[in-house]
């Protein structure tokens, strides 16, 4: 590709305004694929550049109210067209995140969005309130992305993310505390219809939705005939899910008009353009970023001035 396509409704290198907040770019890193934006920050390319050039935001690894140890290893597995993971939301917990991680992100000047997960809808509100109190003066803190893929303890373990009423309840709880920051809800592709979930998030006060989270997947080790992950099934991501993610974004845009941050299998500037073509206003690079700390920056560079990589 030598030039940006004429049909693009915006300059993909421009800032993006979502709700009350303007982020410096439309290419972000996806939750869980670039840590808290701290590990990997010291990596350089041959020209001495770092991995943050041109990025709109780092979406942090998901933070939960208490620390989580996560799942037993092995936790990752490469497949022909993607990757499986079963990390189990290992994280330092909200206290340590606020005390330790937020000041370091503030010091580095990294634009970031915090991914939050709870086990009851009201926890999303409590976490958002505490984050806001701790990060209100941090200019790089742009908002919250709700990770709704955890089992809802109060509702018999049904996932938050598959039930529109619960999506709305979680979003409302966070929206009441978010103030003048962005609130987006990350939606699951693992239900027949995603538009009702996006509509529920918007009704609950989300300014945007992030689509999509991982697909349920598994693989088998043919030497043993057993699943490759201790918990059998995990999250499937990477290039193989791009057409699925694109269809989900298309459904949301056509049926709800809710602003969408597209994510799923993006590796190149051309992949990002596909999401912009169906109406996404920003995109996230996930699995490719895990593999190459410069992946998102390369997508951004490819969309800056038309020289797609």
């Amino acid at each position, binding site marked *: 590709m030598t030039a940006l396509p004429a049909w693009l409704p915006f300059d993909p290198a421009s800032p993006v305004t979502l709700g009350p907040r303007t982020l410096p770019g439309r290419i972000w890193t996806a*939750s*869980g*694929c*670039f*840590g808290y934006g701290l*590990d*990997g920050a*010291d*990596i*350089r*390319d*041959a020209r001495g550049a770092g991995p943050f050039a041109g990025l709109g935001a780092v979406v942090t*690894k*998901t933070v939960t109210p208490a620390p989580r140890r996560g799942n*037993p*290893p*092995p*936790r*990752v597995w*490469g*497949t*022909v*067209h*993607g*990757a499986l993971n*079963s*990390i*189990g939301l*290992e994280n330092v917990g909200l206290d340590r995140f606020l005390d330790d991680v937020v000041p370091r992100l503030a010091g580095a000047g990294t634009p970031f969005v915090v*991914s939050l*997960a709870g086990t009851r809808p009201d926890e999303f509100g409590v976490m958002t309130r505490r984050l806001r109190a701790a990060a209100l003066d941090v200019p790089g803190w742009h908002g919250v992305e709700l*990770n709704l*893929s*955890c*089992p809802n303890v109060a509702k018999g*373990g049904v*996932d938050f993310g598959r039930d529109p009423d619960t999506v709305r309840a979680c979003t409302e709880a966070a929206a009441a505390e978010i103030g003048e920051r962005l609130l987006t809800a990350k939606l699951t592709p*693992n239900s027949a219809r995603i538009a009702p979930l996006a509509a529920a998030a918007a009704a609950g006060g989300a300014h945007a939705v992030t689509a999509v*989270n*991982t*697909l*349920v997947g598994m693989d088998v080790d043919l030497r*043993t005939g*057993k*699943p490759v*992950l*201790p*918990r059998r*099934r*995990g*999250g499937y*991501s*990477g290039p193989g899910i791009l057409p699925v993610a694109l269809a989900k974004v298309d459904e949301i845009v056509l049926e709800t008009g809710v602003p969408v941050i597209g994510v799923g299998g993006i*590796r*190149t500037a051309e992949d990002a353009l596909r999401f912009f073509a169906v109406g996404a206003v920003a995109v996230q690079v996930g*699995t490719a970023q*895990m*593999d*190459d*700390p410069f992946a998102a920056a390369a997508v951004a560079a490819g969309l800056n001035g038309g020289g797609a990589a």
Partner: protein
Amino acid sequence: MTDPALSAPLRLEGRVAAQARVSASMLRLDLHLEAPAPASPGQFCMLNLAGESAMTLSRPLSILEADGDRLSLLYKVVGRGTRLLADLPPQAQVRVLTPLGTAFPAPQDDRPRLLLAGGVGLPPLHWWHRVHGRAQDVPCFGARDGADAPWPLLPSPWRVSVDALRDVPAGRTAVQGNVVELARGLTAQSGADHVVLACGPVPLLAAAARFAAERGWPCHVSLEERMGCGYGVCRGCVAPTPHDGPWRLVCKDGPVLPADAVDWDRFGLAPAAAAQAYDAPTRLLPEEDPA
């Protein structure tokens, strides 16, 4: 934790300078990188094909030698990814993240170092021995049989053990047994305290750790686990620590760790055994953020 003396990782393009089989199971891959990337023995790199043909996940490979913009790796074809690497012709373009992780400690005293390398665990200890090796050190390598051993890389003083005593080339010597048994024989007469450095399959590492602990000798091991990123962001490659302590990240806290930092009863288990050993919750999460 990361030694401040180690260089920060570089993300570089490179080309295949040469690739050659060094044993029945092992290939040596020499890369020419776009910039110099200093590393230390024990560190590793993440290697992928360049551009559109890239695999979803890079493959972690330990470093046989890093010299300026030259990077030499030794690996075994174990699956689809390493098969793709084995097919790379000269001049093929690759992407490398290097150097990653911790290094085997350089000798700080006169105690002999006992090097226990198994199979494709040879590169870091081979390099360590060329950089730091002294007359009193005892380098040992274990292979399945003579055909499995990369003999050109194993000149004296390397000692070789083989599980099956066959295909040993004329003029070379190997003893039957595993590499820890070889080491037991070699050190039995010496009253000296040794320091053990080990790299290889999990059973070798566990046996090396036990061997050293029985003698009160320090032991450093290089761990291997399935990796997503190799640079600390995905938390995929966790290793269990004694008494249910916090995980160690193989890619960032390791791969080289003190042997007593690892819970050997639970490290490197197959998935089904891991589910039991960790008493993983039986409820299956229908999905997980790649988090």
